């Protein structure tokens, strides 16, 4: 959960009402009138009501909902492409609703960048000119931004396409250009509006992987909009579910799947292939029952009372687990394979099935960060 210290974006009491005089309708909406009543009585459409969100620095925050739920409207409030009827939007503690036109332009140029569903590329500019667009309108010299744009094109795997026009590229390639353009401005916050929804499934999966990989190094704050729960679960550190302009649930992927707030979320969660949606880190126990190689078995027995397994790292770097296979046996050390915290459950299933004991989970520096037991895995995969 994002606490107030590392909160980057805070939204308080946000309302969006479409129609000729939204201010007049606002009290009724605040009073709790339903969307249908408002439409029937006043002809106004309630886009968003009472949205409260806190998004932390460095997290991928997914906003999920079906079409018409207001998710694309919501994301356009973050950089004020749409102004709310009421409510506060704070970024880094600044209320962006108070910004003048000039401040807003500066804010958009430096703080946020955006990726669009249908790419939103400029058809009359070449690929490299599109990537450098954000920098070029800041007034940077062409020689400077071109260099940088080329680097980002290389990062997304499109070097060699610099002088092509967007229409000469496939959908997936165009969205890579869109992504490179967003990254090229070095903005801290990345808004992604159904960025991968227009791509076919294979390319979509590839792009998701690329985004995850990029995020490992970049640590941007990403607000990602999608209608696809599988995608939300794969990418999101936290997920907000939006229905008819209201937030239904905000939580970690595991919470959404395991404790859906209502039938709407439950219906979403039911169809999810959990083995493919959840990562080891979502399921693992976060405790680190590790023993240095020099300690003796008595110490291990002590730890074993608290956890059901103890690990140690051998000199060769492999892991050994100390555990009772069943009540009748005494615990013993066995060499075990290790898991990665960002592996999908389905990828670790074979290892888990072959092993009799819980397996250690490592972070990217090869240190123990938790362990995965058969029991928690089984619990998670049960529908």
């Amino acid at each position, binding site marked *: 959960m994002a606490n107030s210290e590392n909160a980057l974006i805070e939204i308080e009491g946000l309302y969006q009402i479409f129609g000729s005089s939204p201010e007049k309708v606002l009290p009724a909406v605040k009073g709790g009138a339903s969307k249908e009543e408002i439409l029937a009585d006043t002809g106004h459409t309630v886009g968003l009501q009472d949205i409260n969100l806190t998004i932390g620095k460095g997290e991928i925050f997914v906003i999920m909902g079906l079409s018409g739920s207001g998710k694309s409207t919501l994301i*356009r409030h973050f*950089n004020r*492409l749409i102004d709310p009827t009421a409510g506060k939007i704070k970024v880094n503690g600044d209320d962006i609703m108070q910004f003048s036109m000039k401040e807003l*332009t*500066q*804010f*958009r*140029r*430096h703080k*946020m*960048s*955006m990726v*669009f*569903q*249908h*790419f*939103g*590329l*400029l*058809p*009359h500019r070449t690929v490299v000119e599109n990537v450098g*667009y*954000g920098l070029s*309108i*800041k007034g940077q010299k062409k020689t400077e931004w071109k260099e940088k744009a080329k680097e980002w094109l290389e990062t997304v795997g499109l070097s060699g396409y610099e002088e092509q*026009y*967007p*229409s*000469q*590229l*496939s*959908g997936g*390639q165009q969205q890579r250009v869109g992504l490179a*353009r967003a990254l090229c*401005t070095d903005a801290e916050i990345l*808004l992604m509006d159904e960025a991968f929804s227009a791509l076919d499934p294979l390319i979509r999966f590839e792009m998701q992987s690329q985004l995850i990989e990029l995020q490992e190094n970049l640590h941007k704050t990403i607000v990602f909009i999608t209608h696809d729960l599988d995608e939300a679960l794969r990418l999101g550190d936290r997920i907000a579910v939006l229905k008819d302009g209201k937030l239904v649930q905000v939580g970690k992927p595991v919470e959404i799947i395991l404790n859906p707030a209502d039938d709407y979320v439950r219906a979403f969660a039911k169809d999810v292939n959990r083995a493919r949606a959840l990562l080891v880190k979502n399921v693992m126990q976060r405790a680190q029952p590790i023993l240095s190689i020099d300690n003796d078995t008595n110490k291990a027995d002590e730890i074993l009372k608290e956890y059901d397994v103890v690990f140690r790292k051998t000199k060769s770097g492999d892991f050994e687990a100390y555990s009772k296979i069943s009540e009748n046996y005494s615990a013993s050390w066995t060499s075990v394979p290790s898991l990665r915290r960002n592996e999908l459950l389905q990828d670790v299933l074979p290892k888990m099935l072959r092993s009799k004991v819980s397996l250690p989970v490592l972070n990217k520096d090869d240190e123990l960060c938790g362990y995965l037991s058969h029991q928690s895995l089984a619990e998670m995969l049960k529908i």
Partner: protein
Amino acid sequence: MADASWLTEFPDMSRRELLTIRKTLDGAYRDFSREYGDTIEALFDPLLSFLVWFENLLIITPWWVILFIITAIVHLATRSLKLSIGVVISLLLIGYFGMWEDTMRTLSIITVCTIMSIVIGIPIGILMSRSDRAQSIVTPLLDVMQTMPAFVYLIPVVMLLGIGKIPGVIAVVIYAIPPVIRLTNLGIRLVNKETLEAATAYGATPTQRLFGVQLPLAMPTIMAGINQTIMMALAMVVIASMIGVKGLGQPVLKSITNQYFTLGLLNGLAIVALAIIFDRVSQSYAKRTQRHLEGHDNG
């Protein structure tokens, strides 16, 4: 009065009243033109001197130099050998049939009218695209300009400025400007919303959006408008000749009154030739600058 004649006859205003209205309005306008005619004419002086200078330039310059320049422009704009040869042949024929000087006069006035239409029309179109209010005001005006018979608005122009080149230019511009205004407006309004949103999201100012996104993307539509404007300006040549604009229109006018069919036909064909040259050049130039739209080579 219990007279029921209004049932059978339209209860129109009496002739005398109508006459008074006409006389008052005509008188007021006449007074206005006597009072300010000279001032307004003076305002147009720079334009007039430019017109005269440009026309003289085209006429004084040896025909083969003009021929070479026009062909070069055509070739640079279109890169089409066929079209360039066609232009050379039609210009040679025009000269051979003794219409060179008139053609140059028409060419000069059409060029000036087109430039003026673009310079005035595109900003108006931009204004219309930004404000629905401006659009709702300008659209009916354009409708009037396009449907009002040209002779009707020739009257006040001639009353104010007399006959000659300037009233001719004004009449032609009034007649020819609507397409470029309408299509500039349309083109900008049709620009993909997401593309424009993207520009805004990256911090483009309204000016950067206009010149960096809206105008370039609206360009194919605007070029179609300019093309239409040129065609309409050429169509006005004959009518403009009635108020003293020299050029290919005058022989046509003369042949109507004297029933000279061949003279009319030849000058008519010269106008057609000019129209085709203008049309092909502006169209293929527009096409060449919009190469990015062709796309889809590899995907």
